[in-house]
């Protein structure tokens, strides 16, 4: 195994494998969160929003992986001083975060697998649309882990950090039109939703599964905004995160 491989595996073992073995309840919560919303949306809409809800669940799972990373990194940093021990070692910030990010994906994987199976059974779209949704999910993941890492390096209090995680999750995945179409929000309130990056991701997803159509110019704008935000958040994660303290 290469040196980077060992360093990444260390993060995965600490934040996922060993934790899952001892605290399986955490795993149950990560599986149930996206599925509970989906169930709610399914019954309320009489099944008409199933495809929208499944795409919403996939986006939420990827975004939540980043917000969970923020909480987990803060916990390890503030309660165990783990970040200090890693900073004072040959592991670089990017490698540490890559391992931690993969560990969050491992946590999210049961929910992702269930949602992917539901997607295969109930949503019938072209391969191009599937690839588009995968790309949206990837961008959501990169965006949220960059944000999560940057925030975690600044946090000094785990209670504050957990509160912030819940706030991010509430604003960006529950209130924002991720599980439901943006057309359900009356104007002018609809424009407020565009403050959330998840709105652009969900809008692309909802169009790709054929729930509604938007002008191609609007779709281009959604992709452009989402790509730009991903780059901005990656830059914040790389440049603004506080690895060595000042």
């Amino acid at each position: 195994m290469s040196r980077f491989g060992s360093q990444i595996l260390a993060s995965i073992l600490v934040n996922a494998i060993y934790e899952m073995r001892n605290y399986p309840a955490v795993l149950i919560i990560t599986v149930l969160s996206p599925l509970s919303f989906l169930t709610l949306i399914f019954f309320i809409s009489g099944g008409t929003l199933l495809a929208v809800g499944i795409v919403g669940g996939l986006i939420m799972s990827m975004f939540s992986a980043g917000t969970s990373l923020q909480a987990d990194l803060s916990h390890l940093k503030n309660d165990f001083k783990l970040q200090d021990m890693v900073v004072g070692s040959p592991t670089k910030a990017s490698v540490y975060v890559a391992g931690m990010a993969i560990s969050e994906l491992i946590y999210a994987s049961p929910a992702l697998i269930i949602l992917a199976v539901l997607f295969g059974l109930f949503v019938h779209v072209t391969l191009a649309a599937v690839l588009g949704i995968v790309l949206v999910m990837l961008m959501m993941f990169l965006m949220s882990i960059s944000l999560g890492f940057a925030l975690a390096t600044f946090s000094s209090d785990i209670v504050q950090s957990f509160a912030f995680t819940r706030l991010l999750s509430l604003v960006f995945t529950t209130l924002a039109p991720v599980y439901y179409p943006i057309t359900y929000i009356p104007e002018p309130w609809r424009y407020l939703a565009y403050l959330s990056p998840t709105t652009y991701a969900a809008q692309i997803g909802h169009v790709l599964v054929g729930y509604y159509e938007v002008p191609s110019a609007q779709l281009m704008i959604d992709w452009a905004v989402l790509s730009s935000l991903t780059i901005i958040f990656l830059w914040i994660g790389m440049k603004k995160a506080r690895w060595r303290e000042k």
Partner: protein
Amino acid sequence: MTRDGVIKCENITKVYAGGKTALSAVSFTIPAHGIFAIIGRNGAGKTTLARVLSTLLEPSSGQASIDGLDIMKDANRLRERIAVVPQEGRTVAWMTPVQTVSTYLMWRGIGYKESLRKAREAVEQVGMAGHADRLNRTLSGGMKRKVLVAMVLASDAEFIFLDEPSTGLDPISRQELWRLLIELGKDRFVLLTTHYLEEAERVADRIGILDDGKLVAIGSMEELRSRLRHGYSLKVPEGANLPVKEGETIALGNGQVQVLTTRDEALSLSKMLIEAKAQFSVNPVTLDDIFTYMVGAMDAEVAEAKEVEEE
């Protein structure tokens, strides 16, 4: 293995965002081997100095290097050779001692299987073979500290930074920790911060005394002793009125007076106190006495400087 290099600090100053000066122009050069203990009161700057030297914290100004590697410019190269156990560093609750040590070794670039083998050896070395696979959350405070020491013991780091490793340990656990530290210091450089003066005296080859961000004194125990003109300390209750001729008297502020003096005068004063059936203690100068003297002297200097400023 003995290191050839030195640990060099040149005017290291750290001013935090709130304006608090934690370190003020700290300068020293010491050999990069053996155990170097930094002592001082709470808030003296011990942790800040350890964090700056271990590349965790940027200084506001000044330069420092370890074995020729600059802590700012060569941080990545330096991190290949250092290991850090921070103040309040704790073992992750949901892991076992072997898992804790092995993942730390993996972060240092060692492969999975090799790290597990080395981790088990290190855990045994710190006397925890029977607890190697128990969850950390079930271990006592002393055992958890030992796991952290096992981490750095198992690593190939040449320069080890331990920030107050014995805080909160019972006397037995502390003595076991000292044994491990002495073991570590045989072939590596260990920087240890502590507010237990006895600990520094017992394990350190060199001691630095910090007070209010300033380095008051640095050297071996013998060198620090030589900073005091007298080798004996006699402590009596205030108002004892001793006829001190050679030594100097210091009010300790706790109802006691300390007389630092020569062996002969300490002997004659002791005889006098025995005859008067007075309570007293006498002993060769300890680090405790040196610390009180140095920090007290520093406080007097500050007071004097303030007086001059006011005039």
